[in-house]
């Protein structure tokens, strides 16, 4: 009995961590190259790691920094955004993204949000999808522990206390589960992208001959709404909507 539980826990642990010494050493080399100012080689090494289909917010952040140092702002912003997606509340990532964004051509004013929406977003962005899922599980396990104490408790006080705690944690766990679900759903349906064409005219419809609406420049963030063939419908932060060729952007 005990042995099988131990094996199960080991299995679960193995499924969540994919450490590799090869990647670690490559990452250390790249970090050292960054320190020495050989940014283009650091970029190559960071990208070698990504080619193995692995990622981490640190990797993206460091790669973004290297691109920034090479004055490739669009790529820097792309990787900062990728890092932010994994670790939404990291101070360093947000700071550097802010600096990179302040250097691009377009200064798009975002539509102001009502305060509750802002609060919600802040709460929502506290953790990434995976962290929210882990929080939900942690709360669920705590609920079970409290339930056990409730069931086995001898005095009335203990039973009462752990009953209410159990209910509270169960509700919290369900809430975290839904936040995680919501985020998961959002990231899978709402794509964001960074513009890589130096200057591009946004069209009114997915057609080269349609009316020119406005011009945006390299490094701007766009939200993908739809795709028709080689054209995507985008929305920029101020709410304007238009069509761009899909080749001009890179997905975050």
């Amino acid at each position: 009995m005990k042995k099988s539980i131990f094996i199960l826990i080991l299995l679960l642990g193995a499924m969540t961590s994919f450490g590799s010494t090869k990647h670690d050493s490559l990452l250390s080399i790249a970090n050292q190259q960054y320190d020495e100012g050989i940014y283009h080689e650091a970029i190559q090494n960071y990208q070698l790691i990504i080619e193995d289909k692995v990622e981490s917010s640190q990797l993206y952040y460091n790669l973004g920094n290297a691109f920034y140092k090479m004055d490739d702002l669009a790529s820097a912003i792309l990787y900062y955004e990728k890092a932010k997606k994994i670790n939404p509340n990291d101070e360093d990532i947000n700071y550097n993204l802010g600096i990179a964004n302040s250097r691009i051509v377009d200064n798009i004013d975002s539509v102001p949000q009502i305060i509750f929406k802002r609060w919600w977003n802040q709460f929502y962005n506290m953790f990434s999808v995976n962290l929210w899922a882990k929080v939900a599980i942690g709360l669920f396990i705590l609920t079970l522990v409290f339930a056990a104490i409730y069931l086995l408790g001898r005095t009335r006080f203990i039973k009462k206390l752990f009953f209410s705690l159990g209910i509270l944690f169960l509700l919290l766990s369900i809430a975290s589960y839904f936040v995680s679900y919501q985020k998961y759903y959002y990231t899978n349906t709402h794509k964001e992208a960074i513009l890589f064409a130096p200057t591009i005219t946004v069209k009114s419809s997915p057609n080269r001959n349609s009316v020119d609406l406005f011009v945006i420049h390299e490094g701007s963030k766009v939200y993908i709404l739809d795709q028709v063939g080689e054209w995507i419908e985008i929305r920029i932060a101020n709410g304007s909507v238009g069509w761009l060729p899909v080749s001009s952007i890179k997905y975050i």
Partner: protein
Amino acid sequence: MLLLMAVPLMAQNVTFKAIGQTNVAVGDQFIVQFVVNANGSNFRGPDFDNFRVLTGPNQSTNSSYSNINGRMTQSMTITYSYYLRALSEGEFTIAPAKIAIDGKEYQTNELKIIVGAKNTQSQTQTQNTDPSNPQEVAELDENAIFIKADVDKKDPYLGEQVILTYKIYTKVPISNIISEKEPNLSGFWMKNLIEQGAQMSPSNEIIDGVEYATAELRKFAIFPQKSGEITISPLELQCVAQMRSNTTRKRRSNSFFDSFFDDPFFSGYQNVQKFLGSNSIKLNVKALPQNAKPANYNGAVGSFTVQSEINKSSVKTNDALSIKYKISGQGNIELIDKLNVSFPTDFEVYDPKITDDVRVTPRGVSGSRTFEYLIIPRNPGEFNIEAIEYSFFNPLTEKYEIIQTKAFNIQVEKGADYQAGVSYSGISQEDIQYIGQDIRHIKVKNETLQPLSYFFYGSIAFILWYIIPAVLFIIFIFFWRKQAATLSNQSLMRHKKATKVARKNLKQANQFLGTKESEAFYNEISQALWGYLADKFNIPLSELSKDSIEDALTEKKVKDVTIKQFIECLNNCDFARFAPGDPTSNMDKIYNEALEIISKIERELK
């Protein structure tokens, strides 16, 4: 009075006429006037295409009042005059001038002007000649006098020094050189290389086998300020050429040049007025190459060196230091406006004192510009003044060059009057000064790498993390319950069997009572009493004592009297057992007591 003013306007016939000489000679100065007898506005003169406008339009007003037979009249004339010079022979028409009077536009007549052949002045043996009043035409070779403009390079770089020279070539003596029109040097930064009024230094030069006396009239170092094709308009001037009369012409080619700028007071000379214009110069100014342009380049073109100097490297706080940067070389040195020296923020820095040492020579502008910075360290410590880089474009190598100064290290010690925090500006504390902005450094601590776009949410592990703890929980609860059930069964059995066991013990005791075996009897009685309670209240044997029994009984709400009786019974049993004398005497009594108390407790517990 108001009425008076109004009258002439009503009673006026507007006339607007052009007046001027109709016959002039080439080189003559003459006047064209446009006369109007009313107060007009928006006067527009014609374009004098074939004439040079010397001055004009000059406006003059003449008004008069007259009272004839009690009637007031006012007459007023406004004259716009132009002073013109005829340039070439022929018949020319001056287009009408226009003016607006009371909202109506008036035009003058056209003016026909016949320009005749050149007048030549022939006031021989006279010095007091008036060049603008020529009298007689004398022969003068077209190539006898000319001005040549020359530059040392036709396609300079933006900001590169170009030497522009105007040279006069003459075969005859000349005097009274008066500038008519200076070359148009807009688009250039210019430095005059020949001082105004300086003595001309004539020399001889042979062109196409003909010997000319030459002199440099103007010499400029010009620095183009914009790229592209720039045309420098000609220098124009007039002079009086002295010619020998026809009888002496034969000798002209011999030794005429010795008399260049000679006193014209000579027999057989004619003074001839001559207008001269140089050729215009076209410069094709090249823009500076954009590739490999240093970031700190600020427009210097030429070839420079830089020296830096500090007067002391260790000072006390509040002592002044001076740092000199001297840039010297060939080029537009006076256009160097600033150096980007970054001083430590704790230093008080004054604007630099700029001293120039510019040498203007006929070969161009060279020299040095010195920036002297006075700095006062306010806080002690070790400070570095970084080396400054100065970049310039060298047109000879066609490359940007960067020159660098030394870096300075300054040791600042605490001076006698130094007080920390008390700053010179009167503010007790200083705000942090931000010098630059950069991204934050990379993260060195390695994070666990995950598969690309790996979602823990919805993965098998995620589901397992829900299921396994839940299963474990159920198993745990199940086993706990089962365990508890068996445990409670055991105590229930003990509880149920308690009376039975006690009875059995008592029965045994009764047997021993019959056989008078006191030791065994007391043993059984004690067993019956202790065991009964232990079983009944599920007390482990190790915890069995009189106190614990008393507690257990009190908890079960057994009467105090009964408890006392029970304890007494236990005591009696022990007492009878170990007391001296015959232990068998009390056996009956104790047996009955034990029997009674057990049944009593039994009753009370129900």
